[in-house]
């Protein structure tokens, strides 16, 4: 597939990777701080007390970014798993129609989710909801990341749907399934 918005999906992938690096970095800092405290008390000095307040929450929200920003990127690399056991047996000119059907189901669900995630986000903004715990992080922040990721996924699905449909209508015999492996 030739994706027009390929660089946008890749941007999503890199944002997702950034979230993973941040999670790893923050947790490591926290642990180094803890080790530093142990060492400092051992040599008789006071605790340095380097702790990151609300670390678990921050990481949880970064995880939302890591998961959702990367959805479209994962999709265009055929890494979302599916059962191709049956449809893999079909000749291309029939397979292409099944492919359109699958993409239609996925796109419909994705758009549906995007719509209701927008509602959820609008509610969080309207009521000014924040997370519990030490840090009151406004929920709209991670929730908009989630919505952005799902919208990006919708775009990738729509682009694939449109191109596959075009092949199905014009010359179904020339369809080449993207993921020929069995995953």
């Amino acid at each position, binding site marked *: 597939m030739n994706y027009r918005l390929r660089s946008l999906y890749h941007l999503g*992938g890199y944002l*997702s*990777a950034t979230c*993973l*690096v941040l*999670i*790893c970095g923050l*947790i*490591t800092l*926290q*642990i180094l701080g803890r080790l530093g405290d142990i060492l400092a008390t051992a040599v008789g000095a006071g605790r340095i007390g380097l702790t990151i307040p609300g670390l*678990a*929450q921050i*990481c*949880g*929200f*970064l*995880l*939302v970014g*890591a*998961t*959702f920003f*990367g*959805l479209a*990127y*994962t999709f265009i*690399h055929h*890494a*979302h*798993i*599916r*059962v*191709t*056991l*049956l*449809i893999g047996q079909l000749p291309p000119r029939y397979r292409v129609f*099944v*492919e359109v*059907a*699958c993409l239609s*189901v*996925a796109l419909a*669900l*994705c758009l*549906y*989710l995007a*719509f*209701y*995630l927008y*509602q*959820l986000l609008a509610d969080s903004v309207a009521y000014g909801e924040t997370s519990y715990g030490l840090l009151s992080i406004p929920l709209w922040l*991670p*929730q908009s990341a*989630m919505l952005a990721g799902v919208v990006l996924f919708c775009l990738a699905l729509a682009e694939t749907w449109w191109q596959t449909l075009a092949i199905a209508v014009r010359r179904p015999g020339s369809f080449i399934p993207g993921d020929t*492996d*069995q*995953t």
Partner: protein
Amino acid sequence: MLILTLTLFVTLLVLLGSGVWVAFSLLGLGWVALSQFTSIPTGDVMASDLWGASYSWELTALPMFIWMGEILFRSRLANDMFTGLSPWMQRIPGRLLHTNVVGCGLFAAVSGSSAATCATMGRMTLPELTRRGYDEQLVIGTLAGSATLGLLIPPSIILIVYGVATDQSIARLFMAGILPGVLLSGLFAAYLMVWAWRYPEKIPAAEAALPWRERLRHSRRLIPLLALILGVIGSIYAGLASPTEAAAVGVVLSLLLARVQGSMDRHVFHDALMGAVRTSCMIAFILAGASVLTAAMGFTGLPSDLAAWIGTLGLSPVMLLAALTVLFILLGCFLDGISVVVLTTSILLPMVETAGIDLIWFGIYLVIVVEMSQITPPIGFNLFVLQGMTGRNILSIARAALPFFFLMMLGVVLIGLFPAIVTFLPSAMGNR
């Protein structure tokens, strides 16, 4: 209830069978259940559930362990392991075939996936062992079987998935997996010894034994791996770190290890990180879909009805487990392990709880059965990996792995007879 069950079952079959992505199949099934069989505002429930399932401290361990595996897969660890282990295996009946079992067992202790374990060890042992004249069929079978330990021995991606989906402590699940993992490795090794004793002509002669000093010098290369295992699993067991913290430290240590070995540069770092993004997005999205499905199922009341129905049959836990084992093996022929686990937790869990089965024990049992499905055709990830590496027909690889399928079955029976194999370590951890 009959109409509900039938509709949902057929919907699931059609969605999965026609090739709709697993996560969307789960979401679609959840939508059908909620919108057709309850009067609950479907979209709102789905959105808030998707949100609720996506941020969690426990789940954060998942991408970290995946990332760690991706780094180690690209390092020279397997190479070091083979060099370090092989001098010690020359005198045991079965000789270097044991490097597959022990190597996979050790690599499983730093990797959470069986396909990664299979690919990493296989890249090293397949060419080395066949070059030395070991029976290729047996080398492939041993590798396919032992690599499944990647799922059972902590860290384990699939145990994180199970723990998050059932709200069980991941640290305890990890500890519960250790002894069964050792048990299975023992069974595999014993099988190899018996085989070598029965067919001595098929095992090449031992190479000249190295003096002890040489052996120890070779084994020095195992130290980084052992340190990594001790650092990650040891800190969880000792209660120094939660699984998520241990995973992040594991990533940093693996990066350092690969850096010291000289197998890390910008490209490798990039590839490992982006590989981790793809795998963890895929799994986390399936988990989010599964949590929507679980909530939907809860609203329809199907799982509890199913549990009550099974209750009226008066099955003993043993008979229930036997029936479930058959079901899971069948499912595992067509679905991957994670899908089997999330479908089980969203539909069958109340049934298991009603039967009075311990959920930690059930998690380990489920993982071993899923392991078995990794080496059964037509869908078995280890088979695909080995097919890619050897170019052999998938059925011939499956036949090579068949003895190990039965050994795992024996393992399931053993943990059924002696549940303490599973429950001893987690209960020894105390109430953390």
